[in-house]
């Protein structure tokens, strides 16, 4: 497995994960920002868990949940015809759970600060709810969506513990950058390890630099 394959797989995982994060994280963040349910605080805490838990804890539970003899594993087998454990899909599910707070928190903060007055103004001008979402909420929160997507992407690229537990280090299927780096070090291939480590570091720095330079400084990761 060459390094390019590893990088391609990592980008693919981060892209698919980010897409799922936005699809699932946006309604969740909206509910957390506006909901009055008594479950709200509990859900908020669960979403934030990956920020403080060792990733191996999440990975351990997922490993058990994804096992071929578990109910989730069997359900997956019936629905898709393929095994869930040590698959690319398993990595996506794990990454979505693990990176969820990085997407939900900035969106939740943005939804809380949303100017309700503008939504009212749009409604009076004849915009129905869906229209208001697209023309008022999305543009109002566009910086936060960019922040959320960037953090979700970068964090997925950089994750290690969960992938180590549930991925199985299969080249082309589950061997992403961080795992490949670990692999190279273990087999004493320091030249390749250096390349991967430096690349990952440069990528993360550039990503954060671009985010912070955009001056979206009113939100910082909080755990």
């Amino acid at each position, binding site marked *: 497995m060459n390094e390019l394959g590893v990088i391609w797989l990592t980008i693919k995982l981060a892209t698919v994960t980010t897409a799922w994060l936005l699809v699932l994280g946006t309604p969740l963040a909206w509910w957390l920002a506006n909901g009055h349910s008594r479950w709200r605080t509990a859900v908020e805490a669960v979403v934030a868990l990956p920020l403080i838990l060792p990733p191996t804890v999440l990975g351990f539970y997922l490993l058990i949940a994804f096992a071929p003899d578990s109910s989730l594993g069997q359900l997956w087998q019936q629905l898709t015809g393929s095994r869930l454990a040590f698959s690319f899909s398993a990595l996506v599910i794990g990454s979505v759970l693990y990176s969820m707070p990085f997407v939900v928190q900035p969106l939740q903060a943005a939804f809380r600060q949303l100017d309700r*007055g503008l939504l*009212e*103004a*749009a*409604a*009076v001008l*004849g915009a129905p709810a869906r229209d208001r979402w697209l023309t008022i909420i999305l*543009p109002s929160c566009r910086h936060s969506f960019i922040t959320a997507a960037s953090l979700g992407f970068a964090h997925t690229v950089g994750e290690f513990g969960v992938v180590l537990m549930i991925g199985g280090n299969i080249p082309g299927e589950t061997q992403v950058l961080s795992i490949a780096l670990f692999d190279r070090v273990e087999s004493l291939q320091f030249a390749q390890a250096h390349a991967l480590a430096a690349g990952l570091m440069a990528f993360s720095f550039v990503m954060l630099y671009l985010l912070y330079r955009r001056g979206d400084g009113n939100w910082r990761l909080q755990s």
Partner: protein
Amino acid sequence: MSELHLKLQLQRSNGFNLDLDTVIPPRTCTAVYGASGSGKTTLLNCVAGLQHPAAGSTIRFGANTWLDHNTEVATHQRQVGYVFQDARLFPWLSVSDNLDYALRRRHRSDGPSREQVCDWLQLQELLPQEPAQLSRGQQQRVAIARALLSAPQILLLDEPLANIDQVNRRQILGHLQTVQRETGLPMLFVSHDIEEVTRLADWLVVLEGGRIRAQGPTLDLCSQLDLALAHEEQAAAILEAEVGERDAEFGLTRLSFAGQSLWVTGVSAATGARMRLRIPARDVSLCLQPPQQTSILNVLQARVTAIEDSQSDRLLVQLEAAGQLLLARLTRKSVVNLNLQTGQLVYAQIKSVALLSDEPH
């Protein structure tokens, strides 16, 4: 034009109660007047569907039922225009795009055109700008234009001139009068400024603590001594008069009503036009005999119809001159010295007259 039926009940946790049941007759402009906390904005929000009154409330506008026990029309389908106290322009859109936002979603196809609206509110130079670059007054002009472009059936205005300096207020009031004249669009206007009310509104609803204290033609209510309106520092009577002959030498124009007349400077309206005038109570003084050799041009014969019954040092006196009501603010000492009584004939000297509109209502 349509009647507005309102039966509203709303209880807020802070103890405030809105409780009214009324029919506002079809008019060009109805003002809802009251102190802050009297429920004016809540009333507008209920009409727009932005606040939800308690079960049993009904709102009907003409043939449309917006709210009753089994209907609640959503805000975006009520076809109302709303000018908020803060302009609420979309900050990421230019002025021009803000207008287009309304135009693309307009409630009816027969509303005014973009060119007309920009002309009425003088927006041409503002179109390419961003809302953040505009002054408060300019933002409010854009907000009014945006509301008009959505082609509403009724325009709601929530103290649109609050926090705007005097010069711009006058200008925007003028724009709103132009809009009234050009479109005939019914307006429901919330204000606690007596000048705005008297310039724009021909029907007045006085709110007090969430209830309707009085309602009727603006001309009548302004001069009623038992309403807070008459006790403002700016208290004034509103009269309607017809433009008559001109005295070119001194630049005066005769404004007449029911056999009496006032000579006023600076009238541009054509002869025969009807005008609305405002006579501040503090600029009216009374004599028991026809005054002679006075600098005051305008003296009306009037009858005292009511005298404020209070121990304050300055009292309001309500007069009737040829069927129209006037107010005079006198010191209590003067009232005592002249021994003024209800029903008495007096001569009212009028020091100043403000023209409210060049156009009839």
